[in-house]
């Protein structure tokens, strides 16, 4: 019968239409600005800079090594290194970025900057709704806009952030251990030097009775 195929198709459309009243699975659209789909954890949009603690300037993890600037495929990161140094996340004295700009009108959200950063300081954000009527300045994000706290990072990418935090804790423990070991080594060295000196002075004393005590410590 001519038209059988068309009727079959119509039945299918009707099933979908009526089904959307009873089955959630058939109702696939959501009313966007009022209703939003749940955020997927792995989602990425544009990069941001992570800082520890409360002070965005002091806690910034970025050490201005400029690796991300070099590796970014469309070259949309601009960094200027500072002249002075400040302590970084593990307490080591490091440079920091005096300027850090990302032009998000050029950025293609590829995540390569995140992959190459050796200091876990640049991460992908999940914000959207970024429309702006200033096409140039409005889309050029500065350090102040880019810096976001570690707590924020933990809320948007919990699994990833936990791994980073664990890594940092390990690094800090290692650094602390290093400091402690260095202190111990210094103490031991001093003690050894003292005993050596004593032994030496004793030997010298024994050898040449005329030498004054403590002569060989230098």
């Amino acid at each position: 019968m001519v038209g059988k195929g068309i009727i079959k198709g119509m039945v299918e459309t009707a099933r979908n239409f009526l089904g959307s009243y009873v089955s959630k699975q058939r109702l696939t659209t959501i009313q966007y600005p009022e209703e939003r789909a749940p955020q997927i954890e792995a989602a990425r949009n544009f990069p941001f800079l992570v800082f520890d603690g409360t002070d965005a300037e002091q806690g910034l993890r970025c050490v201005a090594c400029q690796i991300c600037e070099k590796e970014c495929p469309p070259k949309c990161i601009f960094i200027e290194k500072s002249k002075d140094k400040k302590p970084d996340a593990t307490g080591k004295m490091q440079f920091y970025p005096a300027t850090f700009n990302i032009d998000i009108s050029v950025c293609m959200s590829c995540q390569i900057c995140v992959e190459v950063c050796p200091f876990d300081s640049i991460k992908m954000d999940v914000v959207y709704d970024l429309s702006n009527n200033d096409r140039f300045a409005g889309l050029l994000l500065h350090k102040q806009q880019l810096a976001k706290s570690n707590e924020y990072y933990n809320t948007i990418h919990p699994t990833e952030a936990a791994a980073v935090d664990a890594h940092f804790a390990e690094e800090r423990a290692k650094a602390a251990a290093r400091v402690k070991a260095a202190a111990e080594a210094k103490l031991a060295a001093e003690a050894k030097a003292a005993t050596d000196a004593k032994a030496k002075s004793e030997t010298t004393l024994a050898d040449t009775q005329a030498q004054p005590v403590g002569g060989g410590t230098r």
Partner: protein
Amino acid sequence: MSDATNLTAQIDINTIPALGKEQLLELAMGPQHPSTHGVFRMNVVLDGERVMKLKPVFGYLHRNHEKIAESETYLGSMPYTDRLDYICSITNNWAYAIAVEKLAGIEVPERAEYLRVITGELTRLQNHACLLGFLMQDMGASGTPLMYAFREREKIMDLFEGLTGARMMCNYLRFGGCRVDTPAGWMDAARKVVAEFPRFLDEYENLLVGNEILMDRTQEVGILSKELAINAGISGPMARASGVDYDIRKVDHYSIYDRFNFRIPLGERGDVYDRYMIRFLEMRESIKILEQAMRDIPDGPIVDPKTKIRGFRPKPGEAYGRIESPKGELGFYLVSDGALNPYRYRVRPPSLINLTVLEDLCIGQNVADVVVILGSIDIVLGEVDR
């Protein structure tokens, strides 16, 4: 740009014999026409409704992909490959990764191969589903079939977002593996999507396959003969619809495709209807592959630990890596001179090469069929123009 001068420059209307006493009419279809799947122009010469000559004009979306890649690091080109055929970003990554891996002699761990197959076949499902929707749209079934196709694509894009972070521009593969492992629960979600997919296919078949209008519009339209398909270097579903038994997954045995049990559907007549049906059948085969891959996927590392992200310099040499992308043979040809960036980088885009037979398919057809024939070739202008 003046269209009129361009037209006369390309087609000399006086050389075409008119059929009757009618006047020949030159017409520019596109570039701003929704049926051209992007910015693509066809200069057609019509005798009444009949197409006498057709000249494709492309390049509107040229973005200098190859030259940019020659000044980028090897990894830096990976996100650009996403933007070739923006519906199938992962298969583009894959072809490029295979070329670089050949060039540098990198091995891929087992689990990464499985992940590549899973994401690659999901990409195929997504591409074919979209194509069917667009084809219906081209035939005038506006809205409904495309919306159903996009509903399915949405589920696959959600999976991609969960795994790679992006819905379309996944940038997922790395040389020697994949970027990230599957997060908790992802594989179950993927299994669910794959298990539900056949229902969509059945629904879609009900909706359209027996439809008399569709049959009238597609059967015996735009016939591509087997000889022409072979001679013109056509690949992918389009060649197979003409009966050419050529699928790189079976020919090259690349990755781990020889472990899976699947068949290659072939068409008989090579008309639009065959090209349409072949995609249905391919989706069913892809589901088979996906089920097997998801059942067998082992644990283990996902990337070869020896490969470097920064400062990656393959030794001097050349390599051509190709895969069966959803649209056909997608290949990357790379020449390395030992520097950080490739000396030469060349893409063999399936869409462009499949598009070369457009005129042969369209001559003698009606104007309205041109749109359908173009749709059945399955082009993405991002890949044609690069």
